[in-house]
């Protein structure tokens, strides 16, 4: 152990220069003093004594230089020597080197790839000043999380709060851009004038909003994003001062956002244009219009909890002063950082854990490989020891070999990671929050550090093992290692670990596969084939009245139905799986009015009468909307089965009444009626994700409760709905040539987008599982095979004494079975504990699903036993005569 201390000290010498210099100083001073004392004791006067002592010593500075030189020079020299020697050894053993580099490339490459994504998604800082201080504010009730905040409430919060340095409103919506060849839609964000100052960003060009530019009378300006400037406007150098027609109104471009602002988007959609919050179509100066989000910058040193407490005092005041709009409200604060990554964090962490297991398994293989090779190198090691190399020196050189090959494998792995991730994303495109396929310095550093650590990890045990016996031991045993038993146990231990880790990994992968299978088998609730969809939003300043709005919807649908190839066309506000959708509080009329803020909620939607037919939803009870359900007639609604079962279980819901909160303003900015009659029941559909459970849902008719936003749904005769998109668009423009439509896609594409992330994770885990299985099989084969080679003599003796091939087979395989058994049991125990962490990723299958556990055990056992069987069969073919002569 003292040797190790010296080795470590040498490494540390580089960093502890000053400390070591001081120590050397002290040491030499001590020497001179003692020598001086001795001289004084011999009767020489003090001055002379010291002079003689110095003379006797020689040049003190010279000595110091020599010592320092020897330390520094030796360390560097040894490092270079080690590296050169390592490269030479690797070249002399191409077989081992190739296997090692491939194994390491796979292991380190996979880890680097995952870390690349983790780095881009979880670790990178947002391009704002002090992003940890930024939070998003939302109002919520106990039954409905996540309202926006109304403008009057926002004013009150701003005036009365003490914990925030600044607050700003923010809303996002698509914006019509006209005046060009064809009407277009861009993503718009509507913000208060202090928004960018709050975030702490500087414009790349021009300026941001001036204070007060969000007041009604202010000049309307817009700020565009960097990529919009580049791609849509070709990087026009004269863009500042240009006018764009947004939502029908001219706006002057006054500034451009910096290039890296994309990463800071608070929602995953990139914003093309920023406008004043007053331009937000849903903006109302009413307390009930809870349409905006609020971003805030906490004062330094204030915690989120303290801010929430302060704000909730204000909400109580608001609830007291304005009970209609604000009862039961409390404030929810979410740090901006968490918004982006919450959904992907569990999957990424699990992938990171899985890929680390693969690397560990690979390390075990390499360690065993080194131990096996050790027998061949024992002679070389003994000679070096005899020449005088200390054990730590030899160990260090052996570990250097491992590190060098590991770095080479890591370099190959880096390429693999970069190429592999791109390939995987092409096969299974997934919307990751940031483009992860670039190379970051941190990722490079990670790969280097991981390579070195891996080299040390798999190199250290074999190195220590191989240098255990000295020269004497080597000579006396005639070249065979006397610590064979210890080595065999170490190798077996490695294999057991490999098997256990593989079991855990394979069970994880298996669970994800089954989870994905159940995801695929989920019925969305309606016919999803041959459906073309597109969205549009009518500008409020043109379509000012509900009549005009419904007029457009109706005429547009008529035109679209004329297009050849269109089987049916309908309109819905929030199409399932589009990401759109809203909720509304509602309860049966016969029940007493629930407490404000605690109303039960249902999904709420707007449809035209043809919608249900277009998506293949039959009317199960009652009737569909028809021409009688106009804006003059009493409001009618169609509900889904879950709502019917919830409010009127076992009874007929037709004719019953639903009540809605008086002053809630729904997302489209239109007041919902206070009560409505149920006229029909349709089957359940899922609204946001395939994984969602069925929720109660209520449908209103566009003719009665109109809105400016619509999703056109067209069932086409052809299998390729997209081929009709241009004709359908032209039909829309026949009604209004300036009305853009966007998000043209099929429903199948939407569902695919919904499940793509799950498939992505499953594919990766499956890949890791297969990798682990292959590595373990190879490792098991290697160890058993090596054992057979080592025991050739023993086997020969047994056969000479009359043992049958069958008994030899059993002898060898018993060893293998034992390893597989122990590893398997450990793996199962580990899996029970580990899969608990995966619960968030699983759908329709429990983390301790017995079928998966059993399946994996069977597969692994078969593979491992086959890996054992091959060398065992070789053992039975041993010729006793040859074996006995084997030395």
């Amino acid at each position, binding site marked *: 152990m003292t*040797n190790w201390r*010296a080795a470590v000290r040498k490494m540390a010498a580089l960093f502890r220069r000053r400390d070591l210099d001081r120590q050397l100083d002290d040491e030499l001073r001590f020497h001179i003093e003692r020598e001086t004392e001795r001289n004084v004791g011999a009767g020489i006067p003090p001055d002379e004594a010291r002079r003689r002592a110095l003379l006797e010593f020689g040049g003190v500075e010279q*000595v110091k230089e020599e*010592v320092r030189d020897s330390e520094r020079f030796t360390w560097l020299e040894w490092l270079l020597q080690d590296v050169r020697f390592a490269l030479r050894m690797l070249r002399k053993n191409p077989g081992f080197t190739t296997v090692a580099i491939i194994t390491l490339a796979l292991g380190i490459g996979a880890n680097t790839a995952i870390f690349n994504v983790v780095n881009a998604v979880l670790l990178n800082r947002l391009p704002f000043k002090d992003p940890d201080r930024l939070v998003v504010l939302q109002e919520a009730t106990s039954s409905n999380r996540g309202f926006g905040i109304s403008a009057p409430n926002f004013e009150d919060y701003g005036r009365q709060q003490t914990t925030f340095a600044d607050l700003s409103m923010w809303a996002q919506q698509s914006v019509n851009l006209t005046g060009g060849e064809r009407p277009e839609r861009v993503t718009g964000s509507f913000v208060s004038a202090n928004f960018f100052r709050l975030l702490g960003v500087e414009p790349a060009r021009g300026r941001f909003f001036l204070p007060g530019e969000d007041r009604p009378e202010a000049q309307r300006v817009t700020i565009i994003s960097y990529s919009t400037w580049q791609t849509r406007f070709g990087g026009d150098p004269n863009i500042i001062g240009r006018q764009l027609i947004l939502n029908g109104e001219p706006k002057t471009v006054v500034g451009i956002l910096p290039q890296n602002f994309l990463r800071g988007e608070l929602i995953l959609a990139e914003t093309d244009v920023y406008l004043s919050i007053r331009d937000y179509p849903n903006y109302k100066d009413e307390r009930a219009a809870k349409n905006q989000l609020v971003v805030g910058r906490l004062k330094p040193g204030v915690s989120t909890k303290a801010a929430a407490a302060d704000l909730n005092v204000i909400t109580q005041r608001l609830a007291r002063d304005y009970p209609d709009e604000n009862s039961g409200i409390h404030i929810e604060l979410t740090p901006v950082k968490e918004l982006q990554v919450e959904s992907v964090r569990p999957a990424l962490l699990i992938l990171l854990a899985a890929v680390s297991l693969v690397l560990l398994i690979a390390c075990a293989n390499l360690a065993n490989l080194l131990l096996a090779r050790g027998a061949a190198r024992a002679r070389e090691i003994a000679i070096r020891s005899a020449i005088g190399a200390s054990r730590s020196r030899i160990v260090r050189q052996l570990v250097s070999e491992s590190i060098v090959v590991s770095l080479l494998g890591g370099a190959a792995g880096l390429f693999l990671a970069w190429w592999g991730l791109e390939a995987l994303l092409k096969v299974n495109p997934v919307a990751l929050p940031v483009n992860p396929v670039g190379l970051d310095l941190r990722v490079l550093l990670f790969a280097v550090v991981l390579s070195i650590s891996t080299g040390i990890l798999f190199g250290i045990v074999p190195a220590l093992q191989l240098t255990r016996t000295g020269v004497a031991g080597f000579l006396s045993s005639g070249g065979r290692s006397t610590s064979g038993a210890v080595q065999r146990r170490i190798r077996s231990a490695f294999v057991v670990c490999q098997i256990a880790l593989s079991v855990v990994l394979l069970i994880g992968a298996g669970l994800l596969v089954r989870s994905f299978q159940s995801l695929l088998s989920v019925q969305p609730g309606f016919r999803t084939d041959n459906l073309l969809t597109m969205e549009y939003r009518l500008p409020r300043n043109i379509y000012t009245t509900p009549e005009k709005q419904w007029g457009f919807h109706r005429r547009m649908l008529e035109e679209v139905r004329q297009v050849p190839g269109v089987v049916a066309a309908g309109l819905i506000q929030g199409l399932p799986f589009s990401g759109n959708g809203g909720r509304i509080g509602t309860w049966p009329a016969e029940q007493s009015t629930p407490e404000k803020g605690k109303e039960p909620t249902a999904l709420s939607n707007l449809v035209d009468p043809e919608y249900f037919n277009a998506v293949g939803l039959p009317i199960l009870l009652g009737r569909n909307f028809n021409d009688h359900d106009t804006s003059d007639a009493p409001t009618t609604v169609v509900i889904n089965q879950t709502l019917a079962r919830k409010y009127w279980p076992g009874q007929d819901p037709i004719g019953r009444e639903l009540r809605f909160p008086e002053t809630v303003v729904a997302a489209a900015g239109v007041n919902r009626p206070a009560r409505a009659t149920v006229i029909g029941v349709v089957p359940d559909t899922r609204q946001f994700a395939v994984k969602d459970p069925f929720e109660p849902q209520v449908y209103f008719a566009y003719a009665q409760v109109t809105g400016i936003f619509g999703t056109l749904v067209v069932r086409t005769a052809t299998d390729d709905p997209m081929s009709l998109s241009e004709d359908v668009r032209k039909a829309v423009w026949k009604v209004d040539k300036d009305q853009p439509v966007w998000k043209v896609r099929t429903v199948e594409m939407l569902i695919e987008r919904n499940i793509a992330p799950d498939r992505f994770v499953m594919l990766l885990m499956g890949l890791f599982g297969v990798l682990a299985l292959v590595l373990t099989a190879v490792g098991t084969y290697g160890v058993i095979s090596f054992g057979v080679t080592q025991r050739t003599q023993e086997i020969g003796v047994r056969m000479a004494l009359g043992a049958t091939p069958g008994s030899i087979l059993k002898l060898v395989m018993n060893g293998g079975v034992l390893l597989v058994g122990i590893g398997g049991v450990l793996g199962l125990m580990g899996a029970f504990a580990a899969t608990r962490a995966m619960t968030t990723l699983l759908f329709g299958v429990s983390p301790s699903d017995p079928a998966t556990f059993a399946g994996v055990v069977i597969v692994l056992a078969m593979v491992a036993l086959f890996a054992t069987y091959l060398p065992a069969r070789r053992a039975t073919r041993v010729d006793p005569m040859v074996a006995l002569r084997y030395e």
Partner: protein
Amino acid sequence: MGEKMDLLQGTLDLLILKTLALEDMHGWGIAQRIQQVSRDVLQVQQGSLYPALHRLEQQGWISADWRASENNRRAKYYALTRTGRRHLERETAEWRGFSSAVQQVLQTS
């Protein structure tokens, strides 16, 4: 000239190890002992002891730590390590073998 230096260095190393084989000692003490033992025949500047000590320490044959010396001052004490002891035994055996071989040669001639 280079050879003589190597020989000197090797001998110095051995002397240091031999001294420490008896007891742990600081640099000055080792210098005194060597002077005593060689009866001042070996003219080695005391300073050259220290590069040798540090080299031996790096090679792992001796170890060092700071202790209180005989007169309670702090000094750097050196001790022989296990590998150092083994190295010493090997070298001594070699030397004895060499010197006895030389003696034999001298006797027979």
